């Protein structure tokens, strides 16, 4: 049984979504609207502090919006229970689990939590099949009995992705999935993003990776949406130069004949 057999994407529809901390008031995200059709990959890019994490937290129902709504498959996530949302939306975050001696299989099994009813959440045979499939998909079977604390950064990241897949979500949210990964593991994560049949929203630091893997890109600056659309349109030299405070150039790579963005500090700053 493959994960894809039971999973499919859901439309994500975001309307006038904004957020500010309950106290203090300064909005960290100004109203933003966008649509991501089922099965598409949306990237969220922008400088540090632009509001990428805030936006993602609103999408996985950690923050309650100040205004606006998030609809997954046409349903407002705040009209559903946390558990029902967890059956539709999974997230791979940058939290570092403390070492409480859980094994890889046990972490992946956590993905079945929202689907379980009953005392203590005993695993059924279907649960076990799904956990096995998720472990197999991320090539983690040989690590099943290892403690998370003994794994490398790349292996841990794969464990958390497997855990999210075991949740059988329709929408998968990834927060900087390539952070701290070596180049091979970065490419593997991107390959996975490309091939999963789910709707995916991912924040990415590397703009060239974003351009390569995303169908649509949302560019944020200081909590405001600067652009939304196909990477070629949104990640223009002018927009990136303004948002990141650098000189961005789109260059043509030979011999692969693909676009590649390069960045340089603007002339004035290099003299500082």
């Amino acid at each position, binding site marked *: 049984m493959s994960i894809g057999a039971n999973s499919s994407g859901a439309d994500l529809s975001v309307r006038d979504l904004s957020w500010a901390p309950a*106290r203090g008031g300064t909005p960290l995200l100004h109203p933003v609207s966008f649509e991501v059709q089922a099965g598409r990959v949306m990237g969220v890019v922008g400088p540090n502090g632009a509001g990428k994490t805030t936006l993602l*937290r609103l999408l*996985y*129902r*950690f923050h309650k919006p100040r205004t606006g709504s998030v609809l997954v498959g046409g349903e407002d996530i705040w009209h559903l*229970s*946390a*558990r*029902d*949302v*967890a*059956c539709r*939306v*999974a*997230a791979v*975050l940058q*939290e*570092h*689990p*403390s070492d*409480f*001696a*859980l*094994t890889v299989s*046990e*972490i992946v099994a*956590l*993905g079945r*939590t*929202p689907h*379980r009813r009953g*005392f*203590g*959440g005993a695993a059924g045979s279907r649960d076990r099949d799904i956990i096995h499939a998720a472990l197999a998909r991320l090539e983690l079977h040989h690590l099943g*009995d*290892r*403690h998370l*604390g*003994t*794994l*490398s*950064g790349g*292996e841990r990241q794969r464990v*958390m992705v497997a855990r999210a897949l075991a*949740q059988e979500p329709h929408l998968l949210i990834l927060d900087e999935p390539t952070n701290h990964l070596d180049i091979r593991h970065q490419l593997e994560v991107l390959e996975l993003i490309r091939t999963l049949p789910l709707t995916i929203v991912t924040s990415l630091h590397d703009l060239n990776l974003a351009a390569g893997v995303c169908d649509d890109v949302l560019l944020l600056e200081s909590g405001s949406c600067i652009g939304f659309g196909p990477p070629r349109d949104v990640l223009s030299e002018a927009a990136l130069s303004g948002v990141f405070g650098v000189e961005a150039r789109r260059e043509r790579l030979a011999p692969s004949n693909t676009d590649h963005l390069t960045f340089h500090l603007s002339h004035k700053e290099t003299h500082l």
Partner: protein
Amino acid sequence: MTADVGTPVPMRRKGGTVAFVLCGLTLLLASLSFAISVGAVAVPAGTVWGVFLNRLSPGFVEQTWSQGREAIVWNIRFPRALLAMMVGAGLALVGASLQAVTRNPLADPHLLGISSGGAFGAILALLHTGLFLGLLTVPLLAFAGALGATAIVLAVSRFADATSADRLVLAGVAVSFIVMAAANVLIFLGDPRATHTVVFWMLGGLGLAQWDQLIYPLVILCICGAWLVSRSAALNAMTVGDETASTLGIPVARFRLVVFVVGALITGVMVAFSGIIGFVGLMVPHVVRMLVGGDYRRVLPGSALVGAILLLWADIAARTVMAPEDMPIGIVTGLVGGVGFIWILARKRGA
């Protein structure tokens, strides 16, 4: 951090767990038997179980022992050993649960102000009010104090918006200091000749165990323990992180507070009957994780089992080291626990 290829794979789950439970239960019964037979008057284990069986169904075994022996075994040692088991199991369960919801491996039933509140209540009864409610005065006031301190911690966490794991711990520690300061005021104002009773209460002891009082810790332990075990999956998720747990459908802040209150109920009732017994709740879950892994479906029952065994032996030590005097059991658990913890620390460094 590099992957260590040579890391031992934890014991195979199914068989390992069954073996662990069987070994644990056997060891528990053996420890119980030994705890009751040892003491100023040594009683053979056969007599211990003879008394027990005859109490269950009179005449089951031919009585070969004196009435005096029977009284020692049934009226003094049995309730004391059972209380030791319940206190050990309860404190270990609370420690394991709090460690998960605070993601703090140092979380302990006594960390969050619960025990300070219990001490405040007990000191009030011992030095100021007198036993106006009879023998249950000290336990009742200690329990009320524990719940009062818990209420204050909850109020502070709401007032200071301290719903995150770290801030809840800090709020608990702060309240613990304030309540302890208030308790010390009570000691200061009290009769100095009576303060040694406070010292003995605070160091913990099981010498006052009586059959008709065991029902209170038993009921609370069973109800709260069952609830915690039923939440094993959520506790597992909490160890990964607040945000990840919330994406798994767990109402993180509320769940943490409920676990805290359930833990306060257990700790409060245990503190009320046994005083402050340190280190059991802190250390036992770590030992259990080394034996059965980190899954709370095994950690919780395992902690209860190991905690019960550990406290039986701590009480045996407390009764025999300075016989015929009882040494306060808190001294034993502190000493053994502290040394044991250093051992765990040294082991972890190598892992």
